[in-house]
């Protein structure tokens, strides 16, 4: 991100914060309970430096929802839920009246839909702020993944990653966990152009 000035980097971080806020809002609407969030940690880094930043996610089993996106910006957006909390989140989403068997049966579809809404909300905020259309693919569900899977297998060098980590807590149900968004962007030049234009418009 050395191509961005301090103010441009600040603008990108601010848009990421807006996007996280909106994503948290939709999570709150979906489960119908207050979701307490920590201040998001927003980092923009080269993917080769990601391992040193995933910190407390190292060695943990994650449920991942990943969605490719294309347009003026292209890449992969991921959301991770702690695996041992997955079923509790699904129960919150579908309602208490569901049996355990039904919750287990619908776990993948429910988390996929939750990821779909959160990721689209996140990417849509970037699209709206930059005034461009970002098209996204159907989200994919992955279980038993680790933190390195967050950025997918890009097979490319020089790929940048917007990495956002938020701790969340649903106090009413004693569920705590984390929500991680990793957006890998091979088209970093395009992002830089969009950010510069965004800052210019701010005057």
């Amino acid at each position: 991100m050395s191509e961005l000035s301090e103010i441009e980097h600040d603008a990108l971080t601010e848009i990421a914060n807006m996007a996280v806020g909106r994503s948290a809002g939709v999570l709150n609407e979906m489960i119908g309970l207050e979701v307490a969030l920590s201040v998001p940690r927003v980092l923009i880094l080269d993917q080769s430096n990601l391992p040193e930043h995933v910190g407390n996610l190292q060695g943990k089993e994650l449920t991942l929802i990943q969605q490719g996106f294309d347009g003026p910006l292209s890449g992969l957006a991921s959301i991770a839920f702690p695996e041992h909390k997955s079923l509790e989140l699904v129960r919150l989403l579908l309602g208490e009246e569901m049996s355990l068997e039904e919750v287990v049966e619908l776990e993948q579809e429910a988390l996929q839909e939750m990821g779909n809404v959160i990721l689209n909300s996140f990417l849509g905020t970037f699209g709206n702020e930059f005034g461009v259309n970002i098209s996204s693919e159907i989200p994919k569900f992955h279980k038993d993944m680790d933190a390195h899977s967050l950025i997918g297998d890009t097979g490319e060098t020089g790929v940048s990653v917007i990495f956002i980590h938020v701790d969340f807590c649903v106090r009413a149900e004693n569920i705590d966990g984390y929500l991680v968004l990793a957006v890998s962007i091979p088209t970093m030049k395009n992002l830089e152009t969009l950010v510069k234009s965004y800052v210019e418009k701010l005057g």
Partner: protein
Amino acid sequence: MYQTLLVVDDSKVSRMMTKKIVTQINPDALFVEAAGGEEALSALGANVVDAAVIDFHMPGMDGLELVEKVKTLQPDLPVVLLTANIQKEIKERAEKLGAGYLTKPAKLEDLEAFMAG
């Protein structure tokens, strides 16, 4: 208030969530479900529905393509695009096709306004 609703979404969970809210609005509501565009068009040919709620992101035919086809077949059928995609362009394209636009997660008051006609 619409009675029979076509609900199109590749996610079974999303269809369940939509039906749950609509049933709160109209406990007598009936549903015709489809998991994709082609299935929705077949369902539309085989059933009489009062309105349609259509997802955008679906494998194969996307929601806007489906809205266009539905509007060609039944121009007066009230249709709303229910999508997680919050981008303005999607809203504009839906409205240009004569469909409403709602964002996921679906909210009771939004669907209530749509159901009221």
